[in-house]
């Protein structure tokens, strides 16, 4: 799987970037969603993969048997997932409000604030 996932991650990034570059606000949001999937999967892959063995010490044992998955990146990803959930929710609300005040989701129409 180590040989495959980098390509999956790369294509997620590529598609995220492509979506970010669209003129539609909604597509931009989809792009942000893809970007967060890509990043999380990247952390997961970059720290090494181990099949099935969750880092949970069984009730019957005092110690975890190797090999097992690395718990630290999992905790990091969990944090990142939850943060990106909050961010996505906010971005959605923002997109909705922006659409309401500008009356279009075309980002090219939203440039009155630049110099």
């Amino acid at each position: 799987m180590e040989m495959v996932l980098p390509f999956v991650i790369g294509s997620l990034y590529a598609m995220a970037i492509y979506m970010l570059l669209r003129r539609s606000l909604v597509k931009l949001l989809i792009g942000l969603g893809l970007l967060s999937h890509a990043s999380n999967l990247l952390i997961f892959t970059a720290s090494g993969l181990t099949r099935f063995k969750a880092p949970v010490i069984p009730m019957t044992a005092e110690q975890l048997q190797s090999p097992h998955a690395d718990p630290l990146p999992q905790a990091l990803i969990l944090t990142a997932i939850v943060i990106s959930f909050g961010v996505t929710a906010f971005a959605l609300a923002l997109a909705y409000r922006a659409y309401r005040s500008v009356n279009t989701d075309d980002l090219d129409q939203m440039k009155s604030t630049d110099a």
Partner: protein
Amino acid sequence: MLIVAVISGFGLAFLAPTICRFAKQKSGWWLAILPVFLTLYFLTLLPGLASGQIPALSYEWSKELGLTFAFRADGLSLAFALLVSGIGALVAIYASGYFGNKAPIGRFYLWLFFFMASMLGVVFSDNLILLFVFWELTSLSSFMLIGFEQEREEARAAAIQALLVTGSGGLVMLAGFVLLGQIGGTLELSALLLKGESVSTHPLYLAVLILILIGAFTKSAQVPFHFWLPNAMQAPTPVSTYLHAATMVKAGVYLLARLSLVLGGSSFWFWAVGGIGALTMILGGYLAFSQTDLKRYLAYSTISALGSLVMAIGIGSETALKAMVLFLLAHGLYKGTLFLVTGAIDHECKTRDVRELGGLWRSMPYNAAGSTLAALSMAGVPLFFGFVAKEYLYEAAYKVGAFWISLAIIGALLNVFIAFRVGIEPFWLPSQIEVKPSKHVHEAPWSMRIGPLILGGLSLLLGLFPQILGRSIVSSALTAALGRPVEVKLAAWHGVNDIFLLSLLTLGLGVGLFAVRQDLQRIAEKVSLRWGLDGLYKRSLDFLFTLAGFQTRTLQHGYLRYYLITIIVAVVAITAGGLWRWGGGTLPYLSWDIYFYELGIAVIIVLSAFMATLSRSRLGAVAALGVAGYGVASIYLLFGAPDLAMTQFLIESLTVVLFVLAFYHLPNFAQLTPKRERLRDVFIALITGGLMTIFVFVASGIQIHPTISPFFVENSLPLAHGRNIVNVILVDFRGLDTLGEITVLAIAGLGVFALLKLRLDLRTAKGKKSAEEIAKGGDQ
């Protein structure tokens, strides 16, 4: 005491508005007390100098930056300081008469004394950086004073021009100072002056010299930076007198004289300083011809005088420096007088056009007297102070060669002409153009007479008895400038020699020129004189605005996707650059071991993400995004991360719900970009994706150091009492992360709430609600 002398001026500056509120018309007289007192104090220091007692003090300010509050009052400093405080007192008195009660005079005095104090700071500083501090403060006060009549656009523009020109020179000079300090190993002037040898042989000597010269030349209005000075005549006349004739513009002269010990002596110094000085001297006089405004006459003649001072420093011999000190004082006296008189004329006749003025001696006898004395001194008539100074200048130039003496003569010749036009003609000759006689031209008030009388009187007195100065100030100034004891003997009369004959010749030719002034003027008016960088200044401002406008339109254009493209390309470029430097090393070995269903999930993720990008409908895209998320969650599940998987599943579902709720109100997709742009975007996306792929390969294949995870595995149960290590990390080992994370969530919640409920753009329709009402009504 010395430090009090410098600081007290600032104190007076800040008190001035208050004093003016109480003293009203008399404020000038009251405010002049301090400068008079300072002048007397400086005079008391003179005798000590002869016996080698130089008052000095030094407090540390910032050791790391080499900054000290170091002040030193040697002869050179005192020569300038006397000019500053002496003329300062007279100008202060003069100004209250000049303004009457027409202007916010408190603010005027504030900046005037601010300037006086700064200028004293410049001449007394013994630390290069401290000197620079005061130097820039003089620029600042000059800015405020030139623009004093703020309603007039020309005044404001002139103020800005003066600030920018002297300011840019100052910045260049700062670099020069810092380099000089690094070469010389100290920023203390008195210590630096002993290191002339090591500085002039240093490879950076030339750079330092040029940088510092630029600073001095901009301040002292040397060609080609002279153009700001005539424009600065937009300032009220007391300001022109004080700053732009007598004192501030001489700061550059002071600096050159001060540093000549350490920087001077080379042939570059001689040609750069002497040459530019001579050029300025002649050009300044020449440019005066086409003028008719008294003040502009004086401005150009000041440029010319500054040129001769700089030339004298460039020549650098003992006689030249003697001439410089004498000419400095003489010029301060006569030019100060003439400016003040011009102000009085302007005040009474409401015009400064020399053609409209004439026969004023009857109505303004006191000013006529002062003006005449000053003009004769300026013209270099024997027995006047200006004559003494000119004699020495001639002598110095004569010793260098015929070329230099002829330059000096031309410069002086032009000065004679200007002296007669400005100082004599308005009083003693009839006006060229008959204007209807002003009804009430009479002598200016006493406050405006005392200055011209004292300064003009001194121009004669010191010409008769120059040895008053010779013994005290000139010898100690020369001692300071040359770094060795110098005994100076001055006499009003040296007998008839070559130099004297040259002086007479100059005078005669000058008067001759004056006689044909009307013809000269006609010629000068035809020959358009566009010298200097005035045009360049305007053009560079225009260019600056054009460039700035162009750049801003190009960079900050408002299209989000081009911002993104720029950023992504930049990031890809520097990262790819980094990877390229790495060059790949040995490619990491990765396992090809893969299960069939794993591959299936990978394909599903990529395909659904692809669907999300291609979908024409919003809901389709969101659904596809959700499927991709579920795919990612499955990978977590397969590779030992059940917590992650659960969370991802739930969050993905909730996200889809949120998207649907929000999209309910949003329009459908439209195809907005042409094919070319889409292809370009695909290209950028593929490059980025490829780069990230390489990065992931590298990071998962190479491990420079083993992970710290075993610690958590070992200690989770015994120390943290938990079996689910991921959860233990979240709530215990790295609890702070989690605290931050739920804070982010809380803010997001608050944000969504506020964003959707608070709508300031709608409030006007309903009328304003109070904060409490809004808060109460918020979620109903």
